Structure formats: structure tokens, C-alpha cells
């Protein structure tokens, strides 16, 4: 299928081929699923909502509930106010959510629907029942990427719910409460981040939290609103936290800033804790904010280091290509560097020149091809020009992996053709153990496959 990719790289300005990003609304939808008893609501054509639900379902293998304004021709001319009012009425009478999280689409943005104004109208018409909430985020599909849509919805959670504090002196803190914005990661990762933070003795308010929502057990029931998700009360009490830890500059930073603005909670902006260094920094901040690094955590870290010591010769000098969402890619780049690998191609589809600066900082003199707002056509061309030993990225890498016959480890979002990611984390020390093992499996399986008979060894 990829025999259409020429090796020679030419400047491209207009066309996007085999994207490494998607549109904002799907990120907002995923984030909103992380609020307890929340129904995400897509204000646009019904197709958007259907696509986003299907895509999330393919990744999580779970039912994904979200409602749509089901725009018609009329709405595209006269605006979507009647659809949203009607939609909210339907949603509250039929699905009784506690929270409805409205996000826009390219269409409702272009025609300029003013969501707060329409929601205000819904309040006046008493469409929103007592004690229920409608929040919103603007998620124009022609700006940023799905990661930005996720970030925008996270920020809205703080905007709408976090109780405002008038001055820093008026602030009441719970010295055990730490707020964590986990980023666009799997429910398994959110669980693991919570476990690590709680292991330091702190109390965690994580938002959003999709664990218990899109990783539910088989019970013989379809539960419309599963147990998981951040509660409204938790969100209202964000101001009590000793700090807000934003994991990932792209997906989480704005939300932490918003909590700081509203309630003077200091922000800590960190990388996504993938790998040893980033997880160390995560725990260091937890310690600084009142947590305690237990023997148990030290043991976990030691086991990870031990595994890498045992296997470093297999990683050393191996060339790797990494693509996906910026927070993931940067953290993975650092981890690969620390394993002794050489990340020669590093790419994200999401815009933001900070990506290039960070990747360059991580790789220093070893920096190779680095690109933000790129696509997989470019990645394929790079690999054709400079082959690699391993490819790391989401499912869309499989075409390249096959065309160039390179080992491939799936990490990030979306993963449409394998399972396990929802239940087993990539973050933290445990996640790094799993990730390093999978990378090693891929490298060694290849070595075993390709070794001539006399060099095919039982013990490696």
C-alpha cells in the first residue's frame, strides 16, 4: 500500500498525507468521559459524533456514549441554537446526566454559535434541571489537534467548577491533596499515576479520570454512566490542592494554569512520566509537595533499573523512529535516549514549535530529523532515507513498519489493532518495565528471525 511513497523528499505546503493527528472534538469528547456521570455532547453534524465515538470505541473496545446536535441545512445557515436547546432538553429528559459537556465542531465554530449564550438561554427556559451542569469548550477542528481539544476540555472543567478564591490569603488548603492533570493517556495510565501518587501518602484529585469509565469489567450489564470519573465535588474543591501537577505541556498545562488563576493553587508543569527520568521528576515533585518516597517505590525503581542494566547491550546504538502526540513523543524520546538508543526521526502531527526545541534539548548533538505538524508520509520518507531498527507510535505506523520491514511497538493513541493498553500502563516505573520489555521483545524477535542458523542462540 505504501509503494506510493517516493524516497525523494520535496517541499510540501498544502497537502496532508497520512496524518499524525486528528481534529479537536474527539479529544474533548475523551476528556469529558473522565467526569463522573457526564455525557459528552457534540454540537455539529451527526457524523462527527458518530466518527468520534467509533474511533474511541476501536481504541478502548468499550461503548462510548455521546450525544449530538444533529445539524441540518437550516442550522448551517441560521445557526445551531434551536438544535442545542432541543438537544439539551432531550439529553436531560432521556439520559439524566449530572453534567453535559458541550464541545463545538468545525461547522458550529465557523457559523459562530455562541455556546455560553445558548446555554444561558437554556437556563432561562429551565431546560437544565436543578443541580445539573452544562459546561462547554470551544474546539475548532481547524486549530491545533485532538490533543488541543483534550486540553481545552480539561481547562473548561477548571473554569466551570473550581471554586474561585479571592486572594491567596483566603485560600484554605488541604495539605494532603494534590491535583493531577494526567494528559491524553489511557485509563491504565491514570490508574497507575494515582497509585504512585497515593503511595507517597497524598490524596489525589485527578481530572479528568477515565479509569472506571472506558475500562469497565464485563458484568452482563450495559451501564450508561459507569462508576469512574472525577466527581463534580472533587472539581469544585480543586482550589484546596497544595499544587496542580500538569503532566504534559500540550494536554495538561492550560488546565493547571486555570486552577492557579482561579484559586491560587501553584502549578507544576512536568513531562508525561514515561521512562525513568520523567517518573523520577514526577515523584520528586510529589515529595516536594508533601509526599514521601517509600521503600516500596524505591524497590520498583530499582527493579526497572535492574532490568535495563540486564539488557542495555541490546538497546545500545539502535536507531529508533518515534511519532505520535507531542507529550508522548517527547517523553518516549527521552526514554529511548536513556536506554542508549538513537532517536533519529521524531515527529508529531500537532502544531507547536516548542516540540522542536524540546526534542533538540533532549537529543543535543545527536538530534536527527525533528518535525512538528508533520505527517506519516514524511515519516515514511525519512525512514526510507535513513532506516531504523525500531518504530514507536500508534497503530497508523503499521503500514510503514510493513513496507520497510521494521519492528514496531505500538504506544500512544489510537491503537486499533491490539489490546492491553487500557489495562496495562505505559507511565511510571511499572509502565517503563512493560514498555522496555515490549521493545526488547520486538528487537530480539527480529534478531532471532534474521539470524543465520549458526548464530541463532538459545540464550540471549
Amino acid at each position, binding site marked *: 500500500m505504501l509503494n506510493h511513497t517516493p524516497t525523494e523528499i520535496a517541499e510540501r505546503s498544502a497537502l496532508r498525507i497520512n496524518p499524525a493527528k486528528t481534529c479537536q472534538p474527539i479529544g474533548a469528547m475523551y476528556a469529558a468521559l473522565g467526569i463522573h456521570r457526564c455525557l459528552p455532547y457534540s454540537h455539529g*453534524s451527526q457524523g462527527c459524533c458518530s466518527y468520534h465515538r467509533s474511533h474511541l470505541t476501536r481504541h478502548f473496545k468499550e461503548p462510548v456514549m455521546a450525544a449530538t446536535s444533529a445539524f441540518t441545512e437550516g442550522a448551517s445557515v441560521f445557526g445551531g441554537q434551536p438544535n442545542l436547546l432541543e438537544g439539551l432538553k432531550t439529553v436531560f429528559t*432521556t439520559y439524566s446526566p449530572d453534567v453535559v459537556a458541550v464541545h463545538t465542531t468545525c461547522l458550529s465554530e465557523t457559523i459562530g454559535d455562541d455556546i455560553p449564550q445558548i446555554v444561558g438561554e437554556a437556563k432561562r427556559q429551565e431546560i437544565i434541571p436543578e443541580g445539573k451542569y452544562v459546561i462547554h469548550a470551544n474546539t475548532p477542528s481547524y486549530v491545533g*489537534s485532538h490533543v488541543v481539544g483534550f486540553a481545552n476540555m480539561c481547562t473548561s472543567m477548571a473554569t466551570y467548577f473550581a471554586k474561585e478564591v479571592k486572594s491567596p490569603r483566603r485560600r484554605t488548603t488541604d495539605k494532603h491533596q494534590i491535583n493531577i492533570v494526567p494528559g491524553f493517556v489511557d485509563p491504565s495510565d491514570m490508574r497507575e499515576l494515582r497509585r504512585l501518587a497515593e503511595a507517597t501518602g497524598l490524596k489525589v484529585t485527578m481530572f479528568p479520570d477515565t479509569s472506571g469509565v472506558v475500562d469497565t469489567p464485563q458484568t452482563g450489564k450495559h451501564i450508561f454512566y459507569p462508576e469512574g470519573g472525577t466527581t463534580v465535588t472533587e472539581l469544585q474543591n480543586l482550589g484546596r490542592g497544595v499544587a496542580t501537577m500538569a503532566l504534559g505541556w500540550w494536554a495538561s498545562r492550560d488546565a493547571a494554569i486555570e486552577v492557579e488563576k482561579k484559586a491560587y493553587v501553584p502549578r507544576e508543569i512536568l513531562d508525561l512520566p514515561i521512562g525513568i527520568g520523567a517518573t523520577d521528576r514526577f515523584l520528586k515533585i510529589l515529595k516536594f509537595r508533601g509526599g514521601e518516597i517509600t521503600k516500596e517505590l524505591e524497590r520498583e525503581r530499582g527493579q526497572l533499573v535492574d532490568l535495563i542494566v540486564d539488557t542495555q547491550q541490546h538497546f545500545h546504538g539502535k536507531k529508533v523512529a518515534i511519532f505520535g502526540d507531542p507529550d508522548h513523543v517527547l517523553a518516549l524520546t527521552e526514554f529511548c535516549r536513556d536506554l542508549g538508543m538513537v532517536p533519529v526521526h521524531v515527529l508529531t502531527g500537532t502544531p507547536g514549535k516548542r516540540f522542536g526545541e524540546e526534542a533538540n534539548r533532549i537529543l543535543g548533538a545527536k538530534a536527527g530529523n525533528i518535525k512538528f505538524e508533520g505527517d506519516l508520509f514524511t515519516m515514511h520518507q525519512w525512514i526510507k532515507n535513513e532506516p531504523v531498527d525500531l518504530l514507536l507510535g500508534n497503530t497508523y505506523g503499521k503500514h510503514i513498519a510493513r513496507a520497510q520491514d521494521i519492528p514496531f511497538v505500538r504506544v500512544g493513541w489510537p491503537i486499533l489493532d491490539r489490546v492491553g493498553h487500557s489495562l496495562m500502563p505505559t507511565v511510571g516505573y511499572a509502565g517503563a518495565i512493560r514498555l522496555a520489555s515490549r521493545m526488547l521483545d520486538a528487537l530480539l524477535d527480529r534478531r532471532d528471525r534474521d539470524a543465520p542458523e549458526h548464530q541463532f542462540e538459545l540464550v540471549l
Partner: protein
Amino acid sequence: MTELLAARARQVIRTGEGETGIECEKQSVAGSVSQRACTFCGSRVVLYPIADAVHLVHGPIGCAVYTWDIRGALSSGPELHRLSFSTDLRERHVVFGGEQQLEASLVELIERHHPKAAFVYATCIVGVIGDDVSAICRQVSERYGIPVVPVQSEGFQGSKKQGYDAACEALMSLIGTADASDVGPHTVNLLGDFNLAGEIWIITEYLKKMGVEVVANLTGDGRVDDIRKAHGAGLNLVQCSGSTTRLAMQMQAAYGIPFKKISYFGIDDMAAALYAVAEHFKDPEMLQRTRELVSAEIAEILPVIEECRRDLEGKRAAIYVGGAFKAISLVKALRLLGMKTVLAGSQTGTRDDYEYLTELCDPGTVIVDDSNPAELSAFLSEGKADLFIGGVKERPLAYKLGVAFCDHNHERKLPLEGFIGMANFAREVRASVCSPVWQFAPRHQNSEPQTLEV
């Protein structure tokens, strides 16, 4: 009865209760968790399998991503259709227009890939920002001498159906643009078969054995040059009637090609389709060959059916698929396996389809149009279904309820058409219904008469 969205009450009926006249072909209710897709989706589905054309999605990035290589519409040759091309409109284009972006993208694609044609899909905002897609297409077409076809597929125009129509219009603009004088009399076009898991190849093989040649596969493993001379064929075979009946009617009006609505699912419908072709050409030898083919094929798969039937007899099935025509074939196929249908529904059925379904199904079967997850799971539990046949969004719903599942949508991995397809279907259904996992998995924990669990 399960609580329904009030406005939807007439989109659900039960057979045998004197209820008729289901309401359908309606816009989804605003605020519903509809399983439906949009106009763009419909166009993309129909045109996507034309493998030697470039398909350029003009709009912000999302639409191109969600339709990138997700359908197993196989090609026997070029695979240009499997790549994702988008103009990836950004904020500046929304303000200043995206025409330049579109033109530059087309030029680049055509110069690199030398496709036989290009399709340009206009998504949600293209009209609103004032791009004249047709004009750009015309210019580029003149410059490169290949058809560059605009597809007006803004999502808000409606459901998939409007998209099918837009796609048919695009196809119609290609048909008749090449010389068809070498096309023989015993020839057909295949419409509405998407060659999922290579199904068209099975059907083409049957036709070949009968002595019938296929001129163009309009919607699966398609080639531009074949489509351009499709007007020379003697007959149009229309499957998935929702998507391409309109095209068949237009071709009849313009070129006098008769059409037959057929289905390749299940033994009965498959055999009926082949006989219909043979009868149409009024060739006794062909009819004889068809008889031989059908009986040989049936003899081969019957043991499989019988074996599966032993395990499936008496089990209960629920169906919720894209088009109602498929639901009809499925009800029959399930009967052959000894299974009873307790729910039959579709996203986009017509009144005629539903009337036929109502007649066909046993009393007490729920017939539903444009359903949603809460409703579906309630019907599944209420009907104590053992099997659910649906698409990507329905699968996890079934599994959560402890119900077996068969994907009869574009994510199927085995061919389900043809006689061999019936055997595959039987095996797949049995594999899921009889999976050992169900002994550990609770089923229908909310099967009591109920209101929705929310």
C-alpha cells in the same frame, strides 16, 4: 415496554401487534446518542473503493482521519484509495478561503501519482467558507485531462443516504465517458458491493462460470476506466439497495440499462440473484449452468450449515445494521441456522424495507429505525438475545451484556457473501455464540422489564 425517546416512539414497532407504518427516513432527534453517520460518510463509503483514483478530503483534518483505511474494501491492483489525503484546512483558510490549498493539493497529487481520476469531498465547512469546489475541479481537470469530480458531501445535509446520492451523482458523471462498443451482451455492472474481504471476487467467479462478464465494479475494487464504460453493460445488479438504487435508476433512464435488486447473503438470496441474472439474459444454456453451479455450491456448504445448526438451533438473534435490505437477508440466513430474530433494525431503512421486514419476521419481533445504545441494550436484554449482528459501535455493547457478536459491517474480516460466505457466516456465528468465555460471563443482568439504566 422499554422507555423511548418520546419523539421516537413511532420509529419502533412490534410485529404481530397490528402496528404498521413505521416512521423512518427522519432526521435524528437532536440530543440523541444516534448510531448514525452523515452525508460525507455515505459518499466516502460508496466512492472509496475506486482504487486508481485519488480521494481528497477538502476540510479540516478529522474527516480524513476517521475514514482512513478503516474499510476492508480490497483492491486487486492499485491501492491509492487506502492513503489519506486531506487539505487539512486551518484557521487562515476559514478566514480567507481554502481554494488555493485545494488546487495546490490536487496538483501535487496528480503530478505524483498520475491517477485516472480525482474525487474531491467537500466536508462541513467548505460551503460556509465560500469555496467554489466545482470551479477548482473544472480547472484542474482541464489542465491534466483527467476527470476531477466534486462530491458535495457536507455532513449537515443529512444522514448517509444523502451522501449515497452525492456519490451516485459523481459516478454518473464518469459513466458514459468512454467507448463501450467492445462490451458484449451478457454483461453486468455490480453496484453496492464494496468488496469487503474480497466478496466481489466470489460473485465475479460465479458469474464467470455462468458465462456472464462484469464490466464495472462501481463500488468495490473499482477502476475508473471500467466505470467510464459501464453504460455498455446489459444489466445492473444492485446490492445494498439504499446506496445505489438511485444510480441504477439514473442509468436506466440515460442508457436504458435495466436493473435488478438482489442480495448475495444467505443461500436463498444468493441463488435467487444468480437465477435472476440467468433469466434476464434468457439463455437456456446459461440457466442450466446456473442450476449446476448453485447445486454444486450448496452441496458443498450444506454439511457446514447442518453442523453449525446443531449448535445454534433455537438461539435468539438481534440485528442492527446500516441498511434494512441487509437485515432482510440476515433474518432469512439466521432462519436457515435455526435461529429466531428478536430485533431487526437499521440506520437508514425505507418504509418499503420495513414493511417487508415486518411481514417476514415472527410475531413479537421488534422492528426499529435509527436506534441508540440505551434502546438497543434494553431490547437485547428484553429479547434475551444470544447473538447481536451489527457494526463497530454495537460490538462492545453486545459484549458488555454477555451477548455473542458478528460484525456484518465494514469491519468484517471474512467474506460473508456468496454460498461460501454463508458457510463463513455460520462458522463465525457459531464461534461467537459457542465461545467458552460465556460460561464465565454474566448475561442480561438487567433483563427484567425495565426503564433504562442510566
